[in-house]
């Protein structure tokens, strides 16, 4: 049965809002909702250009709308997820704010769906502390009068031009069976490769197919590989800092051609091999984690896996072969 692993990608993006959305966000901190004129229409939320013609809209033509409005359509969210604006059941609604020609999509908090209907009048419930984000309106609530939740910390000190967007997405990825076999074998300090039944090339790294003959390589093609090989090429990376970066010092990633195999293991970590001593032709041997250590479960292609944590100098003399550097795949 296929095993799945979860992978989350999280990143704090920084949006620049431009003159129109920036003014809209600044308005929110002032408890004002702004639209923009386009002909005889007032578009809310405002756009920088006319959505039909693409014509530039004048930021000086921004006008305040609402604060109250009328529900034009809605849908109930009975079980909100972490990414929904409210933690309890609520409605997403199209709200035509007074003075607007287009509806605004936002949350309406009525407690129960039977309290909501098309034509209902709603007004914003503002957050006390506002940053210039659509979430400065917690939700719309029944009635004509806006509310402020908690102490009011007032408008932004300077015009809002940027917005933080903390993205988070979780993927559930299937682990190819061959990678699970490699990982399991690594517990016993074995390295599994696969021999193509057509061309007889021996693949390291758990590829699961022969790209030359386009045949799938299953368990019956598994072979035990030697634990020694040669560095054919390498990269030494000066880490640039970014959210999620794990490295602070230059680190090496090497291509290892295991003895008796036909493809390299790409971008492998090294152990007890200073970056200054990494070179083409250097002989290395597998380095193993202690048997009881937790092992990497990610099932990623490339890099070391399971109890195989990287490559350590074997102490053998270098291989002198001018063609070695070309062994990149």
């Amino acid at each position, binding site marked *: 049965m296929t095993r799945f692993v979860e992978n989350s990608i999280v990143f704090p*993006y920084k949006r620049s809002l431009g003159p129109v959305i920036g003014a809209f966000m600044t308005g929110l901190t002032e408890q004002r909702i702004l639209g923009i004129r386009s002909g005889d229409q007032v578009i809310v939320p405002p756009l920088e250009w006319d959505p039909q013609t693409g014509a530039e809209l004048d930021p000086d033509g921004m006008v305040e709308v609402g604060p109250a409005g009328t529900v034009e359509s809605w849908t109930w969210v009975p079980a909100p997820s972490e990414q929904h604006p409210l933690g309890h059941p609520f409605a997403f609604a199209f709200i035509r704010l007074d003075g607007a020609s287009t509806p605004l999509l936002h949350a309406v908090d009525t407690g129960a769906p039977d309290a909501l209907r098309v034509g209902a009048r709603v007004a914003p419930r503002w957050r006390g502390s506002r940053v210039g984000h659509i979430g400065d309106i917690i939700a719309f609530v029944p009635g004509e009068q806006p509310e402020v939740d908690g102490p009011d910390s007032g408008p932004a000190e300077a015009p809002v031009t940027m917005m933080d967007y903390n993205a988070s997405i979780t993927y559930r990825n299937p682990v190819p069976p061959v990678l699970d076999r490699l990982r399991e074998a690594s517990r016993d300090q074995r390295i599994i490769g696969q021999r193509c039944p057509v061309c007889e090339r021996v693949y390291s790294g758990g590829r699961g197919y022969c790209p030359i003959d386009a045949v799938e390589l299953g368990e019956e093609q598994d072979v035990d590989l030697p634990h020694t090989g040669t560095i054919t090429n*390498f990269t030494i990376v000066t880490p640039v800092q970014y959210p999620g970066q794990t490295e602070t010092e230059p680190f090496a990633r090497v291509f290892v051609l295991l003895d008796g195999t036909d493809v390299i293991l790409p971008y492998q970590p090294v152990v007890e091999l200073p970056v200054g001593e990494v070179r083409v032709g250097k002989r290395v041997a597998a380095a193993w984690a202690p048997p009881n250590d937790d092992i990497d479960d990610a099932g990623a292609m490339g890099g070391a896996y399971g109890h195989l944590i990287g490559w350590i100098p074997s102490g053998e003399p270098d291989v002198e072969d001018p063609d070695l550097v070309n062994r990149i795949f």
Partner: protein
Amino acid sequence: MSTEPAAIVGVGQTHHKSRRHDVSFGGLVREAAFRALDDAHMTFADIDAVVIGKAPDLFEGVMKPELYLSDALGAVGKPMFRVHTAGSVGGTTAIVAASHVQARKHERVLAVAFEKQSEGNAQFALGSGRGASLGAGGAFAPFIRAYIERSGAPEHIGWKVAVKDRQNALKNPYAHLRIPDISIEKVKESPMMWEPLRYLESCPSSDGACAVVLTNEAGGTAAAADGRPPAWIIGASSRSEPPSFPGRDPVRPAACVQAAWDVYEQAGITNPRQQIDMAELYVPFSWHEAIWLEGHDIAAAGEGWRMIDDDETALTGSFPVNASGGVLSSNPIGASGLLRFAEAANQVRGAAGEHQVAGAKVALAMAYGANSQYFSTWVVASSLQPFD
């Protein structure tokens, strides 16, 4: 039935910078689009279809931005296409746009490509959101080491390209990096980032956009009659190959060579070194200039570095490369490929300004992407039959 000749009648780009905090995505692409439309004496209303390209969405964290940019680009009610070929995408965007004209599906097509790198982080995105990202430099360093070992090129070749492209950038008002005192010493003393690549041998991270307006033969002829010379596409091709297989050669990728010769065959080029006047090649790291000179058979295998050493690829040399300053000077990733294609077009239109190559009539542009596996190439000329 032969294909319809396609011409570039408008080119526009933004001033490329580290951060364009003053504009939204829409504002950024519109800046380039309006400049291209103005150049073409057109408005959105004249355009039949829009093709848009950018690098993977993880760079800015906006999924399918083309959906929201269709309004910004006046594409409501018109066909709009998004192209995905990683770093080569700008070039592929131009080729897809041209194919709509060549197939006689549309008469006037707007191609736009952009990146707003300041909204995210390229190292993060290239590392699939994990730690220990290799980045593009880390991934390509082994390929470059193989080139250097194989060709026996001296190490100063990379430094020379880094200096030449930054000197060219000083003549391009849109270029991002402006380093007036750039020198060999400065490059070789800059920090080693991904051995053998130094900091100043690497491309910057830029916010920017580029746009071109393509039209059919009648449109190109009309522009010419109006005193606005078009650039004629006399060959265009895209090729790709898998990221890894035994025997794959990233120093001379088969997809690169095949795309080049497909284009040469269409254009009637049998001797690229003699028949092409200049090239805009996708060179994010200095050594790629030598690698792609060879990949396009402008120089023999192992000999591309000699053209650099002899200053033949300088602005005043016999075969100028990246007169605009290239990717080494401006890198809004998604737009970087289209910038190559647009700059080549401007050269044969005689519209390149201070970085104009004197007498350029035939120009080559290429872009590559991902693990050096996607290639897009075109040759543009000042007339449809430049070799008659």
